[in-house]
């Protein structure tokens, strides 16, 4: 603990730490010092000079952001000398700032506007010409009006320090100084939207939000983003029952002050034309709009008729559903006497044992000194988790990866091992063997035949030399037939190196699904449900051509004549229309109350920000009414918080089984099918601006030369509908598909 010192600000005795900046002490005490370039999460630039304060004994006013406190300092923030200095700076800042507040989207929430009200002069003494700066487009998410820029360089520092990609910079000097992107392609970062939040003026504003509503017209509602494992805290800003904008909400232990672009711009999907607004039933092959009561009767009658025994009934739910929805659905399914339920649709090997737990908190991630990332492009898949690891690397942590492709991380990777899915078990076994060799422990039988090479030893050394290592397992493992063995080996590696683990393979609200045990104990899992002779199904917010791993088989299977499929969806989808018998429209993100459990096992509940679109109803209410109509017991809920209370009181017991490691037969070439982060769930897939970004448009099947030859592919060919890109950054024997297009594969 650092020593406390006493200083005096405006005659008030306050406490701070030696070396702490004056502005941060003042902020803690609620003493207002105007500022533009200072941001608590960014480095100090001291270039706006707005925070000048008078320090006794100092001939000139000093900037409070870069002046460090020392014991006995006497600071005046609003005496004559400080005020004169601040007013003079304000006048300089306003020299070139245009007076276009009426058409500026920042108007009403602008730091410059607020400070000018207090420190600005009524009349400008500047008669020369004002500076005008050309705008270069910087992509589909951020609108620039660089004439308004006051050169605080917050966006530049954000790019360099937080996003980890230096995309904006200052060029020119003096009058010609411009803040602009270095490349004409615009901003690529997955965190770029935060530049809008840090910009104190209207130079960077949200493009999808442009000219829509003024800041004072909107209601800000506290809620949680549901796209990833973090559950970033956000405000949805609504106007006339529509979400108009999403901005970050501070929560130091979860998302600090940042949110990913996916969380920020996905709200656009809610207003998509593809929303299902009215219940529909299929009568004699024709779709008809129906009233809620007719549709619910149709659904219950169908379930009663087609699932005379519970075991003929199966339920599949999205991993992005709320805790309440998942809890009621599993209660509903088990109430019908069925144990066929699952949420792991993109997993080719849905195993039941809990092999790999996450046992590191987000804040702890910053303190690690080595991270081993297995099967993940963490930067795009879990941007906020990646951000914490990046922070650790800035403090000297090293990172090694075992991936099918060499990804473009925003920190340096010290060891990168390229491994195809079929070789992942062998590679991890090698690392484990090297680790155990190093500490001369006895080897389990399955490691005897494993050969180790230098890369395995390097990674093992990095792990064993680290004091606080972490092993991260990511999403790409889901398509692997041996995913249980991979998870087991990751757990064993973590145990052998005393590392913490972070399981990022099941994302969204998967922790809620685990909490309510939304998977079969003895019944059928997702793959079995979609291949056996069940006759009645409930699909909750599922779009099989995107979400199911064997999408073609799944759709064929659900299209059988004897299958009765009740679909609860918030979006229309042609393939769903082809097999469903009844569609019940449910509320989407921000339209329903619910609970998200994040990777730290923190349950965050939120209320609905807007009313659900059209006639759609919150999912939990629909399930409750269906259960009532089928006379199931235990659905006497009137509020989603009652459901959450009951669901959170559960503590499911997991069978901790050691998965045997075997050298199972694998195909010569395996495919890793990974969606771009902007195709990871249905809402974000309909967010038009995100789809226009470089990350959103990404669609390529990367393959190395040798494998391409084996598969007789050449550059530009289509591999399952995805253009082939031949490059050597991919492991041999592997096609790495990164796309926003639906799966067209029967089996991958």
């Amino acid at each position, binding site marked *: 603990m650092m020593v406390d010192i006493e200083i005096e600000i405006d005659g008030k005795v306050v406490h701070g730490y030696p070396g702490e900046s004056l502005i941060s002490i003042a902020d803690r005490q609620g003493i207002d010092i105007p500022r533009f370039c200072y941001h608590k999460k960014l480095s100090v630039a001291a270039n706006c000079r707005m925070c000048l304060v008078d320090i006794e004994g100092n001939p000139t006013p000093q900037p409070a952001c870069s002046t460090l406190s020392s014991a006995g300092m006497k600071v005046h923030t609003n005496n004559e000398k400080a005020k004169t200095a601040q007013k003079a700076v304000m006048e300089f800042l306003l020299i070139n700032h245009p007076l276009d507040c009426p058409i500026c989207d920042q108007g009403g929430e602008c730091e410059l506007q607020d400070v000018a009200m207090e420190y600005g002069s009524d009349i400008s003494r500047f008669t020369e010409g004002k500076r005008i700066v050309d705008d270069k487009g910087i992509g589909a998410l951020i609108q620039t009006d660089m004439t308004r820029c006051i050169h605080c360089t917050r966006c530049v520092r954000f790019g360099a320090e937080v996003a980890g990609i230096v995309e904006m910079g200052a060029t020119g000097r003096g009058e010609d100084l411009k803040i602009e992107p270095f490349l004409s392609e615009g901003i690529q970062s997955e965190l770029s939207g935060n530049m809008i939040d840090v910009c104190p003026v209207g130079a960077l504003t949200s493009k999808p939000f442009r000219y829509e509503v003024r800041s*004072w017209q909107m209601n800000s509602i506290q809620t949680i983003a549901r796209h990833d494992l973090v559950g970033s805290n956000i405000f949805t800003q609504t106007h006339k029952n529509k979400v108009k904008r999403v901005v970050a909400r501070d929560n130091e232990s979860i998302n600090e002050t940042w949110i990913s672009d996916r969380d920020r711009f996905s709200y656009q999907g809610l207003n998509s034309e593809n929303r299902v607004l009215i219940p529909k039933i299929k009568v004699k092959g024709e779709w008809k709009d129906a009233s809620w009561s007719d549709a619910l009767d149709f659904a219950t009658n169908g379930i009663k008729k087609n699932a005379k025994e519970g075991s003929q009934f199966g339920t599949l739910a999205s991993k992005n559903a709320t805790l309440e929805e998942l809890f009621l659905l599993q209660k509903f399914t088990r109430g019908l006497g069925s144990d066929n339920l699952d949420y792991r649709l993109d997993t080719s090997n849905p195993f039941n044992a809990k092999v790999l737990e996450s046992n590191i908190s987000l804040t702890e991630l910053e303190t690690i000194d080595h991270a081993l990332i297995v099967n993940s492009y963490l930067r795009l898949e879990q941007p906020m988790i990646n951000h914490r690891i990046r922070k650790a690397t800035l403090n000297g942590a090293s990172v090694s990866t075992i991936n099918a492709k060499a990804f473009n991380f925003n920190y340096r990777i010290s060891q990168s091992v390229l491994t195809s899915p079929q070789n992942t078990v062998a590679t991890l076994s090698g690392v484990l063997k090297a680790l155990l060799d190093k500490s001369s422990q006895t080897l389990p039988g399955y490691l005897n035949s494993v050969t180790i090479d230098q890369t395995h030893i390097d990674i093992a050394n990095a792990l064993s030399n680290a004091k606080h290592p972490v092993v991260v397992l990511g999403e790409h493992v889901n398509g692997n037939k041996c995913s249980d063995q991979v998870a087991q080996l990751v757990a064993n590696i973590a145990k052998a190196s005393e590392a913490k683990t972070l399981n990022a393979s099941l994302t969204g609200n998967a922790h809620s699904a685990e909490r309510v045990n939304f998977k079969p104990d003895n019944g059928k899992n997702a793959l079995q449900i979609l291949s056996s002779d069940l006759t009645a199904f409930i699909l909750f917010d599922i779009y099989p051509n995107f979400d199911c791993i064997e999408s073609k088989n799944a759709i064929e299977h659900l299209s059988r004549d004897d299958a009765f499929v009740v679909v609860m969806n918030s979006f229309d989808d042609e393939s769903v229309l082809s097999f469903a018998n009844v569609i019940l429209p449910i509320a989407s993100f921000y339209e329903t109350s619910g609970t998200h459990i994040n990777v730290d096992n923190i349950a965050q509940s939120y209320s609905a920000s807007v009313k659900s679109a059209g006639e759609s109803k919150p999912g939990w209410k629909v399930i409750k009414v269906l259960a009532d109509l089928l006379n199931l017991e235990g659905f006497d809920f009137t509020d989603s918080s009652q459901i959450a209370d009951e669901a959170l009181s559960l503590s499911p017991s997991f069978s901790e089984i050691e998965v045997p490691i075997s050298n199972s037969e694998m195909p010569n070439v395996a495919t890793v099918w990974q969606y771009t982060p902007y195709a990871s769930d249905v809402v974000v897939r309909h967010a038009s601006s995100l789809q226009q970004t470089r990350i959103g448009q990404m669609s390529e099947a990367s393959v190395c030369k040798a494998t391409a030859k084996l598969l007789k592919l050449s550059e530009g060919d289509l591999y399952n509908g995805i253009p082939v890109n031949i490059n050597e950054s991919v492991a041999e024997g592997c096609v790495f598909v990164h796309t926003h297009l639906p799966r067209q594969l029967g089996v991958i």
Partner: protein
Amino acid sequence: MIKKIKKIIKDFGLSEIRAGMKITGKQLTNDKITVQFPEERTPISPRFRGLLALRRYPNGEERCIACKLCEAVCPANAITIESEMRDDGTRRTTQYDIDLFKCIYCGFCEEACPVDAIVGTHIFDYAFETREGSIIDKEGLMEIGDKHEKAISKARQEDSKYR
């Protein structure tokens, strides 16, 4: 007693009628002040706040930039605005409605407007026949503005030296 006698003299001397006739006589020769509304109208101050109108620039471009300051300042919540980006990239309204039942003719909207788009005209005699007629939309407001632009700009001109 003396009071009574004075009153009798006053009453029989028709003093009050004479006083009244004196005024009548004076007014007989004066200019008349009765105005035959609506054929004749009284003069109006340039600051008069009557029916609201939306103006255009001389080149025909609408002035309003959808800043919504009038909507924000309106104490009666009589103004409703929806905005969008027009194809040429400028900020424009798609809807600009004023509910004349709510409007209290305070003129705050005119004071708030940074581009002199919404203005009070000198029209104060108007009526509508349906309940919905109380809401004038953007088109209606522009029409009023176009029709009375001369009078509106003259009034602004006259008032400008006091601003």
